[in-house]
């Protein structure tokens, strides 16, 4: 039930709209109640709550990011449980310097210990 003052304001609002010729063809009777039903959470009156909520969401986001990064970076490295024992084969002779360019090799007789040109 609307009180007299609100009813009067509503009438004046309609009156002014009509006098200024700024009125629609019709207005839903429940227009104001539809808007009012959506105003249940005023943002400005819960400033402190909002502030806390923002901090909490930032902290949660940081923790999730840290966990994700940690799992991505550590999962790729898999350590063996036993020691890896493997002989390292070192070249006994430096063969790189003995190679001749193929252009010169073609018409020369090859010494027995030289590498073949491929």
């Amino acid at each position: 039930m609307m009180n007299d003052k609100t009813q009067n304001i509503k009438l004046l609002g309609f009156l002014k709209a009509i006098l200024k010729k700024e009125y629609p063809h019709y207005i839903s009777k429940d227009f104001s109640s539809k808007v009012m039903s959506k105003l249940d959470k005023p943002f400005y009156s819960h400033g402190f709550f909002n502030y806390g909520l923002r901090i909490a969401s930032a902290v949660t986001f940081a923790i999730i990011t840290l966990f994700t990064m940690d799992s991505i970076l550590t999962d790729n490295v898999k350590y063996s449980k036993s020691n890896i024992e493997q002989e390292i084969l070192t070249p006994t002779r430096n063969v790189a310097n003995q190679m001749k360019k193929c252009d010169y090799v073609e018409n020369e007789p090859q010494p027995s210990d030289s590498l073949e040109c491929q």
Partner: protein
Amino acid sequence: MHDDDKEILEEILDGNISKYEVIIHKYQARIISLCFRYTKSYPDAEEVAQESFLKAFNSLHKFRFESKFYSWLHRISINCSLNYINSKEKTKEKETISENSGLNEGRREISSETPYNAYNMQIMAETIESVYNSLPDDLKLMIKLRDIDDLSYDEMTKIAKLPIGTIKSKLHRAREILTKALGKYIDDE
């Protein structure tokens, strides 16, 4: 700049949210009318107007009282209407691409019929026009200066050359006659 709504708005900002209904009642007709100019559909105009009131409410703490509240609300409504048009155009593009676009054509028609649960403003306007024209000239002048031209009481005293008390009383009388004529169309919610 003096704003008639300042007291109500301060009460709302102090946490008395129910007072926002007064603001909605005061401006709903003009805002829906403004939105209709853009949407060309009454149900859509109401939807956009609803969004405008909600946006204004949620941004109320940013309102600095440097302009009139209605001017600010008016600007918000225009922005909401333009957003509506942009989103509608995007939907229209999608509909053109879609094979079923022909099925949605019927929605664009503007119905002139007043729905059951709505105030018919056209009938109210006809009544008000005839009552306003039958008012004595001095009362008609008060209505014109205050409600149509939006003048302050100081400006009215200069134009009408009457003391402020007389102006207020004449304006009250004129409004009473007009709202009484309007009252029979408005049922108490």
